[in-house]
Structures are given as structure tokens and as C-alpha cells.
């Protein structure tokens, strides 16, 4: 195996890690704050990718498509939260089952509207050709995805750690009942976090489009990865989601490249080890 193989697989790992972070950050925050494993989250990612396909027929700019698609999915997520999940407050099993139901409905909806063939999203202009860095060829778009994920990570970190809204969300993750007793408007936080998580998932689907395409089953491919990331990193922890995403990005990419028959063993083994020895994940908190 050449040096180029290792360098490229490293970049692929980083790009997958970046996309996973966009997916898992929202999943983790929703899980941490609302105590719901939102099983629609993979479907939001796929829905984003397909909506991106349609937007790109009118506006041929992937970045604008990602913004608009993220907004559309955020709006949809907000409606699901306000009008469905809200009615099931306190019934966590019911909420999880509803999110699973929505995942199936969205999957069928996408199949009807966009058909069963994979649809690749075009790579943005100027990023199609590889760039040469230190003698190695890098696909420019994957570098851009990594940069966007890092920028999103920094923005989310600032939101969570440096604003009153972020502190309120963390207070809710720490002790929901007490957060309500000091007057924090928890139900508004639920909607904000659910919209934010949906937006990130939807935009992630579009940004991942040039690499992964939009195809039926994309949701079911991505959701387990998000689950593993959150279990690995710790529920409700942004730093955990970040570190977990890149660990899984590497494990999955190199696992498939080096031991394709064992890809799932390699993927799930670290999760099992973490659950056995650190049940709250690498960055999980007691009580979370």
C-alpha cells in the first residue's frame, strides 16, 4: 500500500467524521436534553440530501442549497416536535416509537418523490479537481467538508459555552426538573434544540451529497453511525460528539478499506468496549 493510500484514507476518514459530526451533534443534544433517541435523525439527513437534489435544479449552488435545505428540514423538525412529540411529553417510549414511524414515512416519501436510483449531488465549482499538498493529491471538496465541520463545531461550542441560551440547555441536560423550577422555559428550548439538530442533519445530508449521493437506505446507513458516535462520546456532550465522530470516521473508513469483511465488527467493537467500561461514554456526565 502506498503512502498516497494512507493519506487519502485519512482524509476520507476526516470527511466522514465531519459529516457524522453534523449528524451526531444534533442527535446528541436532543438525546441529552429531551431524553429522546430521535430515530428520525437519519431520515432528516436523507431528506436533506433529496431536498438538496431538488433545490439544485433551480439554484446551482450547493452552499445555498445546504442552507435552504437545512432550513426546510428544521421547519419540518420543529413541526414534528411541537405538534407530535409535545403531545407525548413524559412518554419517552411513545416518543421514540413516533420518531421511528416518521423515519419510515420519510423513507417511503423520498422513494415516491425521488425514485429508487442513487442521485449524486454535483461537487461545487472550483472544488472538483484535487489539490496538491506536500506532494499528495487531496480531493478539494473533502477538505472543504472537514473545514465546514470544524467551523460548525466551533460555532456550536460558542453557542453552548458562551451564551445564556447554551447555559440554559446545559442546565436542562444536568437537571431538567430543577431547570424548570428556576424558570427556564424548557419547552421553548426543546423546540430550539430540535430545530437546530434537524437543520444540521438536513444540511449535512446535502453537504455529504457529492460524496455519498442521495439514495434509498441512506437514512438507515447513517442512523447507526450517529447512535454509535453518541454512545461513544456521551449523551448530551458536544465535545463527545465531536471526538466520537472523528473516531468513528477513522474506524469505519479504515475498517472498510483494510478488512472489508470485518467492517461492522471493527465499527461496533469500540462501542461495546466503551459501554462495558465507561457506560456514560468518553465525555458523558454522571446524571446525564
Amino acid at each position, binding site marked *: 500500500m502506498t503512502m498516497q493510500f494512507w493519506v487519502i484514507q485519512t482524509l476520507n476518514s476526516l470527511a466522514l467524521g465531519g459529516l457524522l459530526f453534523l449528524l451526531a451533534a444534533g442527535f446528541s443534544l436532543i438525546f441529552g436534553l429531551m431524553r429522546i433517541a430521535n430515530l428520525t435523525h437519519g431520515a432528516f439527513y436523507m431528506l436533506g440530501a433529496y431536498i438538496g437534489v431538488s433545490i439544485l435544479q433551480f439554484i446551482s449552488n450547493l452552499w445555498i442549497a445546504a442552507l435552504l435545505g437545512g432550513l426546510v428540514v428544521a421547519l419540518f423538525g420543529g413541526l414534528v416536535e411541537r405538534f407530535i412529540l409535545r403531545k407525548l411529553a413524559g412518554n419517552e417510549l411513545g416518543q421514540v416509537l413516533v420518531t421511528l414511524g416518521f423515519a419510515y414515512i420519510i423513507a417511503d416519501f423520498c422513494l415516491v418523490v425521488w425514485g429508487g436510483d442513487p442521485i449524486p449531488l454535483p461537487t461545487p465549482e472550483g472544488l472538483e479537481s484535487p489539490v496538491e499538498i506536500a506532494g499528495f493529491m487531496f480531493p478539494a471538496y473533502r477538505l472543504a467538508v472537514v473545514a465546514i465541520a470544524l467551523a460548525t463545531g466551533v460555532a456550536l461550542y460558542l453557542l453552548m459555552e458562551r451564551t445564556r441560551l447554551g447555559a*440554559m440547555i*446545559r442546565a436542562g441536560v444536568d*437537571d431538567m426538573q*430543577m431547570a424548570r423550577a*428556576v*424558570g427556564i422555559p424548557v419547552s421553548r428550548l426543546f423546540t430550539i434544540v430540535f430545530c437546530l439538530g434537524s437543520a444540521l442533519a438536513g444540511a449535512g445530508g446535502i453537504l455529504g451529497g457529492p460524496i455519498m449521493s442521495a439514495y434509498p437506505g441512506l437514512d438507515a446507513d447513517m442512523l447507526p453511525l450517529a447512535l454509535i458516535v453518541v454512545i461513544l462520546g456521551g449523551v448530551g456532550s458536544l465535545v463527545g460528539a465531536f471526538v466520537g465522530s472523528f473516531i468513528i470516521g477513522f474506524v469505519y473508513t479504515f475498517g472498510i478499506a483494510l478488512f472489508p469483511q470485518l467492517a461492522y465488527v471493527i465499527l461496533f467493537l469500540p462501542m461495546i468496549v466503551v459501554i462495558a467500561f465507561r457506560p456514560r461514554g468518553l465525555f458523558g*456526565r454522571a*446524571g446525564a
Partner: protein
Amino acid sequence: MTEALSISGINALYGDSHVLHDVSFALNSGRVLALLGRNGAGKTTCMSAIVGFLPPRDGEIRLFDEPIARLAPETISRKGIGFVPQGRRVFASLTVRENLDVARQSRHDAVTPWTLDRVCDLFPRLRERLYQHAGSLSGGEQQMLAIARALMGNPRVLLMDEPSEGLAPLIVAEVGRTIARLKEAGQSIVLVEQNLKLALDLADDVVMLNTGRVVFAGAVDEVRNNEALLTQHLGIF
């Protein structure tokens, strides 16, 4: 005298177990009411019913004559109930400053509103620890933070559940002095306390609960030297 908080005929249940039976009492504005009773008498359940954690099955709870029973806890808090819970329950992963900041509420009728500066004047130790995580504070400091956090909401009535629990005697005295200062400033307070001396020193009125029923309600002087009453319902002396 205005009634700050009135509880009338509330019944509360944990699942099938009936914990509060027809409980009624009232707190007058600017007074300290001590809610006393043995372990399991229903004191904490009473607090839970008022703050909205355990909505009472029936009965009325009024805050300055406005009904608040069965509202959501965040709404009850915004109407003016401040709560210092048993076990302190500070937001451990937030800094001291963030704990205070997320609980900030302005109230137009507050004469001298509580601000970060003012609660730090009340508890100078919190000022030194503003950027420390609340989980790393000592028990006494966490208790001060829990009180300060409740004050940041500018409560019209402050509920304190066992504020001296698990604290060293020196710190208990400090917490006691703080409650006395709040009382002087006109704060209406319901105090649940196992430390009888502290409770009787601070209270104007006393309500005693026994197995979920009110067995005594009256002025603190009627209790202080009534050993029979104290023995029967609190199991002391």
C-alpha cells in the same frame, strides 16, 4: 396582613400512596413559616406540590391570591416562587456564574431587585468562585449557590427545603444569618428544617405535619416551650 402563599385542602399522591391529606396553611407576606415534622411527614412533598413537581390531585394553592396549583414548574417559578431544593441540586457542570445567570428573572414589582452583584455581596465566597464549576464547590458553597440561584429569580415567596442539611455547624450558622437577613429585607419564606433550633430562631409561624396531615399551626411562641407538642410530633426531647 396580606397572604403571600395559601394552601387549602391539597391532597397529593405518589402513585397509589396518599402522601398529603387535606393540607392547608397560609404564609403571610414578609413572614417566615417553619414547616416541621418527622422524616416522611410530607414536608418535601408539600414543597413539590407548590413548585409543580407533583401537582396536587385537588385543593388550591394561591400566590398573592393568584391560583398556581397544577401549573408547569417554569410557570410557577415565573409567577414568583423561588425554590432552594433539598440536596441543593446546583447545575454541576455549569460555572457558578452560569448557575446564577440562567436563573435570572426580572420582576417589575421587586423593590431592590437581586442582581449578580447583590447576591455576591450576600455570599462573598461565590464571588471568588464565579468561574468554577458548581460541582467542584464544597457542600456549604453549593448551599449558598442554591440560595443565590433562587434569589436571582426575585421570588415573591422563597421555599427552602432543609438548607442546613449535611453542613458543618459554622456553615449552618452562616446560612441561618443569611435567612435572617432575607427576612429583615421583607422576604416571605417557607422553611422546611430538621434543625429545630435554627427553625424556631428564624420562624414567626410554625406548621407541623404528621403522616401527611397538619397537626399544628400557630405562632412560634406557642411551640417553643411546648415539650408535649414537640415530643408527640417531632419525636425529640
